[in-house]
């Protein structure tokens, strides 16, 4: 009898040990994998996280400056230390050219892409370079900020007016788009033509839609100085070379808030056009799970907060507060041309602008 009890006791002990062992083992396993919930928001299933960690790395191609992007993805890496993010940064059309080149060489390197132009993204979709993407946050993104199943915007870039507050004071300051047509600003406006990218195109499309065909004609009569990017516009206004500018916000934020330049930003009540920065996943990528995880994170509250904080951009999500120095999203009347309008009117608007302003 005692031997029976002893053996049953041994068996129980063994079972207990086994249970403890598997529990510990399970716990240990769970500890080595990061949580799929970040900042209270679930962005990935445990299987995805495990597969992503197995991938171990992800290659991000982005139109955002590499310093900024690095600062953003470092947050991702601290949440997911098992994944290393490499960043390749280039301006939109050149990034696009590079992606095409790699794809034709059969050497696609990018896993995740952040682009600046919906039309370029559409082209990539048509060329079958991208794959479907369905993040968990899809409902948080309003209709005009995504193409369901394909891309969602990683940031919103607003277009508004800036002026040098040492050169322009008080009542002289412009308050809206129609002020730009005031003769006192003739020859004193800095901006960029719609050919430089989606941001500028959206702005001109908005102005035409809102105020009719005559607006662009009258703006042309103001003889604004046209630059090939928004950064020099911000710089020249900050230096006082031009008192006012019509600009994309991401170019002026670092100077205004970051460097304390004497710029004041005006978000016209009539409307603030914006453009999107689609984030997409590539087909046939080498690290598909890590890619998906990174993209999901980017669209989460944590990721969006980081984007806003680093770049001064806006998030499309209303539950992400705006950057320091910027008014809240809800207070703005934002406007977006939409993919259909861009596709139909893209070249026509560019040609019209070129004719009116006498440029390429």
């Amino acid at each position, binding site marked *: 009898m005692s031997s029976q009890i002893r053996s049953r006791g041994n068996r129980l002990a063994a079972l207990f040990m086994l249970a403890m062992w598997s529990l510990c083992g399970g716990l240990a396993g769970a500890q080595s994998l990061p949580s799929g919930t970040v900042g209270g928001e679930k962005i990935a299933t445990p299987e995805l996280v495990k597969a992503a960690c197995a991938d171990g790395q992800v290659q991000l191609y982005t139109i955002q*400056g*590499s*310093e900024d992007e*690095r600062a953003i993805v470092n947050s991702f890496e601290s949440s997911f230390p098992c994944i290393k993010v*490499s*960043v*390749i*940064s*280039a*301006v*939109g*059309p*050149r990034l*696009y*050219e590079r992606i*095409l*080149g*790699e794809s*034709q*060489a*059969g*050497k696609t*390197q990018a896993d995740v892409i952040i682009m*600046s*132009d919906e*039309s*370029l993204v559409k*082209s990539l979709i048509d060329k079958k370079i991208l794959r479907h993407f369905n993040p968990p946050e899809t409902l948080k993104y309003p209709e005009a900020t995504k193409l369901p199943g394909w891309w969602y915007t990683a940031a919103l870039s607003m277009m508004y007016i800036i002026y040098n507050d*040492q*050169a322009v004071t008080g009542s002289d300051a412009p308050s809206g788009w129609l002020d730009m047509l005031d003769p006192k600003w003739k020859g004193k406006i800095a901006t960029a033509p719609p*050919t*430089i*990218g*989606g941001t500028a*195109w959206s702005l001109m499309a908005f102005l035409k839609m809102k105020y009719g065909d005559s607006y662009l004609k009258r703006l042309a009569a103001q003889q604004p*100085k*046209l*630059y*090939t*990017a928004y*950064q*020099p516009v*911000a*710089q*020249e206004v*900050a*230096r*006082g*070379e031009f008192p006012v500018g019509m600009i994309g916000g991401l*170019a002026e934020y*670092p*100077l205004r808030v970051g*460097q*304390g*330049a*004497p710029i004041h930003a005006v978000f016209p009540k009539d409307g603030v056009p914006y453009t999107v920065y689609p984030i997409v996943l590539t087909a046939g990528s080498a690290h598909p799970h890590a890619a998906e995880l990174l993209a999901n994170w980017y669209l989460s509250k944590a990721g969006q907060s980081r984007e806003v904080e680093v770049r001064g951009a806006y998030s499309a999500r209303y539950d992400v507060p705006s950057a320091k120095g910027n008014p809240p999203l809800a207070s703005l009347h934002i406007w977006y041309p939409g993919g259909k309008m861009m596709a139909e009117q893209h070249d026509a608007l560019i040609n019209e602008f070129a004719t009116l302003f006498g*440029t*390429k």
Partner: protein
Amino acid sequence: MPPGSSRRTIRKPKRHNVRRSLPGRLTIGALLAIAAVLIVLPVGILLLGSFLIEPPRALHVDWSGLTLRNYAEVLFDRTFPALLGLSLGAACVGTAGALVIGTGLAWLAVRSDVPGRRILEASAVTPLFVSPLIGAFAWEILGSPQSGILNIMAREIHLPGSINVYTFGGICFVFAIYYAPYVFLFSAASLRNMDPVLEEAAAMCGASRLRSVLDVTLPLIAPALVSSALLVFVLLIELFSIPAVLGPGGNLNFLSVEIWNLIGVTPPKVNEASALGVVLLVITATLVLVQRRVLGGRSFVTVAGKGLRPTPVKLGGARLPCALAGFGYIAVAVVLPYAALVFIALRKSLYFSNVAAIVDSRQFGVGQFAQTLSDPVVQTALRNSMLVGAGTMIFGCLLYFAMAYVIQRTKLPGRTLLDAITTLPIAIPGLIIGLGFLWAWISLPIGIYGTLWIIILAYVAQFSPQGVRAIGASLIQIHPELEESSRVSGATMTATLRYIVMPLAWPGIFSALVLLFVLSFRELATALFLYTSNTIIFSVAMFDLWSRGSTSTVAVMALVQAAILLVFVAAGQAARRPPIDQPVKGMP
């Protein structure tokens, strides 16, 4: 029968050597192949791409897309005449300015008794080290119509008018001052080699000083002037950095920048860019061919002559004004820009609108230096540029030596072709080389795309004219009989190279190494298509930061570049072996 000679039969020939100089032919074959891949292939791909609808990325050519449409779009575009006219016009005026400054300076430094002549001669080439990109940055800081430092100061003391660097005149001015040193080098060399008896003969005939300069000196150095003018024109019309920095402010569109812009629009117009690139190439290639004609195929090198130095022309009362003019140029081209950069680098806030704000001592601090130097992008860029410089130097010089030797010292067939191919890159704008390299190399299994190697190779291709000429110049000075006597004494080709040619050519090769490092550190346009954020190089980082408004960082980087190049050149001078004609310390 003549005494002393005996008829002996010739022994049956022993088949001693049937070699048809096989190693020689292999060498030149290899060199031609390398030159073709490095230089001809990228240009060829670009040419091809300009006739296609889809760019030949990764060497995939869609032959069904052959078209002239790209050229039609480019040439018949409404703005093309203005584009072409502006580029040609600015290159012309810039060249004229460079001619006047360069020749005047050369004459002052070599032939007159202007005070401080030696310093003037030594410092006349320093603007070359400034690099056009940094010069453009500095002149933007100095000469923007509203907020340029010079204009602020002028307004303060109520000087009428202002300078505007964002104009045609402003850009031509910057062109002229940074390209005058090329003219200086050519004219000074020519003036130094001039036989003084020619002017003396004119004086004997009764010509006044001025007349003898106009009638004798000028015509004699005319080939050097024409040649350098053509060279400067070609360099200016394909220049990217100055028009890219100073053009937008005045809405001035230049050909070279337009190529870059076309790829920067959405969607990128790559094929039109290549068509425009070909247009530019046609212009530059024509001019280079003309220049070769003028030189009669010789390269214009300074022969270190032991010739008599002609007696300096006495300037008399004009001594001081001429000295002011000469040193004034150095001040304007070098001192003033660097002063502006130092100023910007030390300022905490870049926003000043009057002199009081400029000299406000509270606004100064060295924080910007620390911040810039610890910036990871800057550090990466610096490291990359040093690596690229080293790679270009070493691989370039190895290749250039082999090429220069084959071209000059052998009679191998095909060496004229090799010579022609190595001159080609002068006519090819850096942007074109970069784009061509991108298309040509991206699909090759060697996998250099995305690494520093593709930049190094592009540079080696781009600088082959300078490298082969520089090393060629040092080879020319070695009398062929020095090599022949070595061969007759029993040395093989390798032994001759090792014991005779290399030691004698070494000072010239060393100078070429330094030159190549400087050129590669400065270069911008070529790398613009080839860099990635891992392989970003110093000049590209500066350009990128400038375009994003980080002016302080750019100023610090410009100073860092100046320091590095200065150290390098100085170390190069110090490390040179003593000149050959000094007695060698020997054993008793």
